[in-house]
């Protein structure tokens, strides 16, 4: 048996205690459950807060929200949605553009729980098998979704979209009533577990790719203001669903903020860092051509990179 593979987490728990090493994870799970409960309080307890699903919903009878990618597919398929649907899409678009598009992925999307579970099990079992896929593949999938919707006149992604499939099955209760949505969820779990690490959310999902693109200039970001304390344990890389986003914040002399649109601001790097290098917070919006920094000391020659 080779040396045991290092797992992210234990070092941070030793250093900061269990709660601080899981703070953002707990917050995210609470948010994911909370968003689900907004939709479930009606069918379960008769208290209607959000009606509908993540595709399109009506909150408290006044606030329409629609999935912008769904609206894009609809437009590509040559249907102009009614004002309510369009307004809902614009509101969602504006909210994520102002914050960070992929907040949706790690704080709202129900599939995140599945792929996080697959990643955790993968680490625990020490599975190394990893089919190489380009992370840009999801952009091609996104382009293909729009193209195929235009060609067929159908919202093609909705035939397979695991996000809405799972959410619908949860909210309308078909998951527990003999529905088949679990098969898609199981397929994604197995794919992430045994075929490609973070395969679905990190490489294929066009919903995440879309949100990433609209949230490029958002204000919510992880930064590394204490990066001089980094001791290269690499726990953040091991836990991060998009590990390529971390390096610039640790090494870029001009900015210590994770700017990549791929970052989902899940905060797991913040949790598992035993040295408390990272912070998840709000930064003034980045204007064209300007850089921003969370206040890390500038790097000098010989600094760890």
């Amino acid at each position, binding site marked *: 048996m080779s040396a045991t593979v290092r797992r992210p987490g234990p070092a941070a728990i030793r250093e900061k205690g269990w709660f601080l090493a899981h703070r953002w994870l707990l917050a995210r799970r609470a948010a994911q459950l909370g968003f689900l409960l907004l939709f479930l309080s009606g069918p379960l307890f008769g208290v209607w807060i959000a009606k509908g699903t993540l595709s399109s919903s009506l909150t408290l009878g006044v606030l329409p929200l629609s999935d912008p990618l769904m609206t894009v597919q609809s437009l590509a398929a040559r249907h102009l949605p009614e004002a309510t649907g369009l307004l809902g899409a614009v509101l969602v678009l504006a909210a994520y553009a102002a914050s960070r598009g992929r907040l949706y992925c790690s704080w709202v999307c129900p599939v995140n729980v599945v792929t996080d579970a697959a990643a955790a099990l993968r680490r625990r079992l020490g599975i190394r098998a990893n089919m190489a896929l380009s992370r840009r593949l999801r952009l091609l999938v996104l382009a293909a979704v729009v193209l195929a919707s235009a060609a067929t006149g159908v919202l093609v992604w909705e035939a397979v979209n695991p996000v809405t499939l799972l959410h619908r099955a949860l909210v*309308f209760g078909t998951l527990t009533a003999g529905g088949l949505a679990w098969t898609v969820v199981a397929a994604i779990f197995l794919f992430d577990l045994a075929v490609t690490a973070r395969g679905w959310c990190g490489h294929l999902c066009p919903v995440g790719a879309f949100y990433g693109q609209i949230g490029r200039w958002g204000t919510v970001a992880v930064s590394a203001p204490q990066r001089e304390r980094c001791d290269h344990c690499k726990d953040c890389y091991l836990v991060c669903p998009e590990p390529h986003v971390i390096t610039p914040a640790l090494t870029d002399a001009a900015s210590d903020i994770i700017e990549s649109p791929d970052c989902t601001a899940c905060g797991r790097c913040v949790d598992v860092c035993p040295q408390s290098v990272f912070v998840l917070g709000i930064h003034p919006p980045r204007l064209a051509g300007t850089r921003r920094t969370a206040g890390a000391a500038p790097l000098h020659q010989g600094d760890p990179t």
Partner: protein
Amino acid sequence: MSASSDTRGVNRRRFFSDTAAAVCGTGFLALLLGWAAAPARSLAATALRPPGALPETDFLAACVRCGLCVRDCPYDTLKLADLADGAASGTPYFEARKIPCEMCEDIPCVVACPTGALDKGLTDIAKARMGTAVLVGHETCLNFLGLRCDVCYRVCPLIDKAITLEMRHNQRTGKHAQLIPIVHTDVCTGCGKCEKSCVLEETAIKVLPVELARGQIGAHYRLGWEEKAKKGGALVDGIIDLPDRGYTPPPIKEFRP
């Protein structure tokens, strides 16, 4: 100098090959998605769309599968299709034999639709065309067998308009009447109450998608008697009415027992 222009050439080639790969990859994925979505484009004959639904091809471009119509249906008629159901995954439909449409006057499902997949132009539920009822069980319908079941006729919200009973002679007994339920496709909304309440094990009257349920005569067809009435006389003057090869119809009395 030559080295840098070489690099530029390589970069250009690289750019073109990368772009070509991305375009081809997108095309490949688009075809895959097209295939994946293809089966979803056919709607099972038992799956009926909510009132005001756009024609199926337009509907699939418009419906975002949010379920708001389902939530606002007071009778739990509508449901969202699961993966293996007869309608595109996530789209709303109902099965008349299970729960028919109660034809709410305010049509809450249409009001709830945020995208226009259910047409807000529909304000009179009697104008809805969710399907058309067809009496398919001519050998099993109790009224065809000479009984007075009449249930489909009685439950029809548009009684005597969408379904009427037509009296016919019962050939089998020779001395009774049959009251045959006749569906009038220009009035039937496809609500499915007839299908739901048919007393048979397998319903004799079924609501089918409109295009499946109706015949359509050719646009060039002319109905002679209508043309004649329109003209107010014979269409061809001086036509000779030839004798019918010596056949004389028996006196009508023979048919009356």
